């Protein structure tokens, strides 16, 4: 079982993850969720991803098209726009920079927790 993740942390990087996944491969909502789960982010629920896709679409970072499906209703496929690619590049740089700093801080050894009453 994959470890759980802080929902707030995930929410902060969800747009970036979605842009990256959609840049890799045009996908529909449920497929994106499955891909996130396969990556080990099983905490991310459908109810979080669909509105995030709607937000990206409103912001003009992704565009969608309906593709008919043999398995049921037509599916809405998303892929990044030029603005989306720009946001992905910028977001990736910012995340990498932040991750380096956070990793550096967290890798520093900390003194042992003081004993009670000492």
């Amino acid at each position, binding site marked *: 079982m994959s470890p759980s993740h802080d929902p707030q942390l995930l929410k902060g990087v969800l747009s970036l993850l979605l842009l990256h996944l959609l840049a890799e491969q045009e996908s529909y909502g*449920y497929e994106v969720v499955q891909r996130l789960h396969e990556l080990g982010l099983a905490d991310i629920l459908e*109810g979080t991803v669909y509105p995030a896709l709607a937000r990206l679409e409103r912001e003009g970072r992704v565009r969608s098209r309906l593709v008919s499906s043999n398995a049921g209703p037509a599916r809405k496929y998303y892929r990044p726009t030029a603005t989306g690619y720009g946001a992905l590049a910028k977001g990736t740089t910012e995340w990498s920079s932040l991750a380096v700093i956070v990793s550096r801080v967290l890798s520093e050894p900390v003194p042992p927790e003081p004993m009670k009453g000492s």
Partner: protein
Amino acid sequence: MATAVNWIDRLRIERAVWALDQRLYDLPRKSRIARRREVRESLISASRDIGTSAALQRLGNSRQLAAEYLSAELGDEGRPHWFAAGVFLLTAQLVFTSLLTEAAMAFAEGIATAMPSATGKFEWSGIRYLQDTVQYTFVDGDATWVGGAWTPLAWLLWLTATVVVGRLWRVRPMPLLRRKNPASLNAP
């Protein structure tokens, strides 16, 4: 492993979609339809993969999902609640008109009870500040009446309450803000 989706599953999915849709009335119609389709399609796909109960569970609470959708599409700033305003506008008028009519009828019944064969003209000043004077004409205990309309104050209160319930003061600034600075509404 793929699971067959039977008609009971479809009903459960439709119920979830309907519950969500009921909370998305503030979205433009086209957008609401798109959201319904997307959620329905996703639930059907998920239902085949993991079963309907798990699919519905993973979708989460419809209230929270609707709030996320509204925030995603309309921005996080305060927005008018058109649906609530519309419901209040109609309901309040029906209820208030019924109340005033009942009050006018009660006065007429009071006269008829006190004087079963009353004949002549009577007047009731109505509910103070909210209703015009009601004039009754009695002929052998049978009453007809005119008046009792809403006063300007009643209309004003009704409209003010509609604005408050629907947060309609937010109507004007939003398009202006969007035109001036689109990025301000796009903050994650």
